């Protein structure tokens, strides 16, 4: 088991290093930061001065070396767009907002998807099941930005039930969390439904009924517990997806998280912040996957001996 974990950890580090190469190269391939940040009046002298100040006059491999050596110490340099702020400091300032939104979206996904998935399976072929399928279809086909704007229009502008945007109390989180979690509701619901259908047909369920257990106990206690393995695995993955996929939702709702920070940094060609955001996102995603792999190996011994 330890060797398996060590191997997977090494693979994760390799993935992170590849990611660092990709983000470093892509940031620079997307255009000269100075063209984005300097005013039209800027002279060649301004270009040369800032290029030197920001270290952009160094050869690419030297810039990469500096980036990696600093990154290993958690230092991604100072932001170019927001002078006086460290890139990692900005990411860390914004991360709690993203974690809060992602956590709430995840909770909403589970709270909605689980009962609907169970209900669709238990009431297979009925109007409930059809409704569940429609929810799944809508969830997976509605673009997040469109859903966000519609929700904002209906519930914030017209009904005035929630604020349109920004971050504050619970009421600020409802609409962005639904927007962010909606896609996952659909996916999770379908997974719960199919797992439940498998379990509902099994022999031990018939036995519990024969023994005279109440139907709700059969469904919620015995069936759901057995059907939960696949959704649980998926749950771990969507936790990462929600955090890293919050860019659109945060932009629509002006939610002050890392997604919005990433968009602003990309627009401004603030390489330092872009690199910090992507590496943090990648680390979260890689760690989540590593955790899932370890859990898998723990639950299923065959995996660790492959």
């Amino acid at each position, binding site marked *: 088991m330890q060797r398996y974990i060590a191997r997977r950890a090494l693979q994760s580090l390799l993935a992170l290093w590849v990611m660092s190469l990709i983000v470093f190269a892509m940031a620079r391939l997307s*255009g*000269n930061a100075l*063209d*984005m*940040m*300097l*005013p*039209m*009046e*800027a*002279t*060649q*002298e*301004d*270009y040369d*001065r*800032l290029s030197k*100040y920001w270290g952009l006059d160094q050869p690419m491999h030297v810039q990469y070396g500096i980036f990696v050596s600093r990154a290993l110490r958690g230092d991604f340099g100072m932001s170019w*767009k*927001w*002078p*006086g*702020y460290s890139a990692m400091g900005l990411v860390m*300032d914004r991360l709690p907002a993203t974690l809060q939104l992602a956590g709430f979206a995840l909770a909403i996904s589970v709270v909605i998807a689980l*009962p609907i998935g169970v*209900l669709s399976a*238990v*009431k*297979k072929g*009925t*109007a*409930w099941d059809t409704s569940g399928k429609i929810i799944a279809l809508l969830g997976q086909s509605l673009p997040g930005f469109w859903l966000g*704007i519609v929700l*904002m*229009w*209906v*519930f*914030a*502008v*017209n*009904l*005035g039930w929630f*604020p*349109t*945007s*920004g971050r504050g109390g619970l009421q600020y989180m409802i609409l962005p969390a639904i927007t962010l979690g909606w896609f996952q509701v659909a996916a999770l619901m379908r997974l719960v439904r199919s797992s439940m259908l498998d379990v*509902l047909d099994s022999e031990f369920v018939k036995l519990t009924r024969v023994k005279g257990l109440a*139907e*709700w106990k059969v*469904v919620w206690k015995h069936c759901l517990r057995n059907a939960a393995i696949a959704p649980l695995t998926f749950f771990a993955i969507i936790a990462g997806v929600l955090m890293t996929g919050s860019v659109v939702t945060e*932009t*629509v*709702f*002006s939610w*002050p998280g890392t997604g*919005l*920070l990433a*968009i*602003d940094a990309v627009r*401004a060609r603030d390489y330092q912040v872009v690199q910090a955001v992507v590496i943090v996102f990648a680390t979260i995603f890689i760690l989540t996957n590593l955790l899932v792999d370890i859990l898998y190996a723990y639950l299923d011994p065959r995996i660790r001996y492959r």
Partner: protein
Amino acid sequence: MRGTRLPWFPSLRLVSLALAVVLAWGLATTPAPAAAQLPQKLVFASAGFEDSNRFWTVARPDHLQYDPFLETLLEVDPKTGEYTPRLAEKWSASPDYKEWTFHLRKGVQFHFGYGPFTAKDVVHSYSLTQRPEAKMTLGPFWRSVDEVKVINDHQIVFRMKRPATTLDYAVSRAGDLRIVSKAQWDKEGLEGFDKRPAGTGSYQYAGRKQGISITFERADKHWAGEKPAFKELEFRIVREEATRLALLLSGEAHIADMPRELQKDAIAKGMKLYFSSFPVDWITVYLGGQYHMPGDKAFRADVPWTNKKVRQAMNVAINRQELLKTVFAGKGSLTYVTGWSEKSEGFNPEWVKKFPAMYGYNPGKAKQLLKEAGYGPGGKPIKVKILAFTEPGESEGPQVAEALGIYYKEVGIDSEIEVLDWAKVRSMFRGKAMHCCIWPNIISWRPSEEWIRTAYFSKSPNHFYEHEYVDKTYELLSKTVNKAERQRIAQAIGDHLFEEFADIPLFWFRNEVVANPKVVGTWAYPGMAAGRSTHFHLVRPPAK
């Protein structure tokens, strides 16, 4: 399993009915313009700006964030556009325009108890423009200052390396020298300045959420007795256009930047447009490959629009009135020569008279001109790539590109639209790699000399249209101080650009914001001050 009863679930019909009612109610309800009671805090939802307390690290349009609390030596009168006294009571230039003397106002106090405003604060503020991380719009101008000499606490002299006829602009509310407190800097350094910069405006700095918002509070006592109607002011950065509309209609914001296509939705819901007193931005279609300086290796004769006739054809192929009406909702006025407004030095009224004959919509003439140049049916095929990009608050670029494609197709010019971002487009014209392309660009007002240096002087990093005549005449202009002579020289450059069809000038626009008329009654702002939407202390609630 079919029909298994789970009694704790409500009936599907009930759930569906409730959902349908809520959605229908939400969609059918028309929001009324909010805020029947006048709010304490005025909220402006902005498309965005580079936000930082360090005024020397942002460009002129981003000075919006300093306008309420960091003042300048001179004011831009919101109604006349003239430079008037502000922190400087009076000023004068030497005959050679190499020395400018400013007499500073007495009795001005910095916020948060940082003491009185004196000449030392001007020297300190100027010194910040020379920091290595500075990226100011007028950076090159500030480098031409030889010395800022303190005569006494309330008198200061700017000594220039060369004649500077535009120093009044540079130190005005339209320029980018903001006056900050030396006492605060000495006591707290950059860290204290980043945390809570002290200014002298009628609002004082309250706080900033980086990339999200900046807030101000009304200052207790302002030296001029300015008393803003709203106790607090917030600039909220909201990138998404639909979100800004939602903020405005829900009453969470009272003023918002809005693209023209969304303005009508806001107006239909009871909102109102507020225009700047003067035109602020122009849109022009620049023609790539116009590198006409003798011996320039970047010049390529095979670029069709290096031929003047083709350039004129590309101008007369466009129906400007129709374009203005369809893309810009009719709000704008014709530009005769790119960068020159009627208030600009060197503006020539003759351009207005000649424009219809030389630039007016005439597809037949366009075809004829192309034929004479050897292009079109029977001649060489002509193809152009139109680059489109958008910037926050300037979303019409791609629509203009599409319209150009349609007009050019009518006269036999094939076109292809490519959507890029600003950095890419800029690197192309900076690198003289624009032979393939033309690109519509919205640019903000600046004095004629600044614009000529930025766009047409061959030694500038920008390469729009370059010509030996323009270079020589610009150098003469930069050394000339006599007002009438300058007018003549600046006009000569404008005449050249006009006669040569250097580019495709389209329209001038005033700054436009949408606001809730229940909160904003009147608001006079010039638009040409740095930041465009400025003078928030002049926002007055409607009369009861």
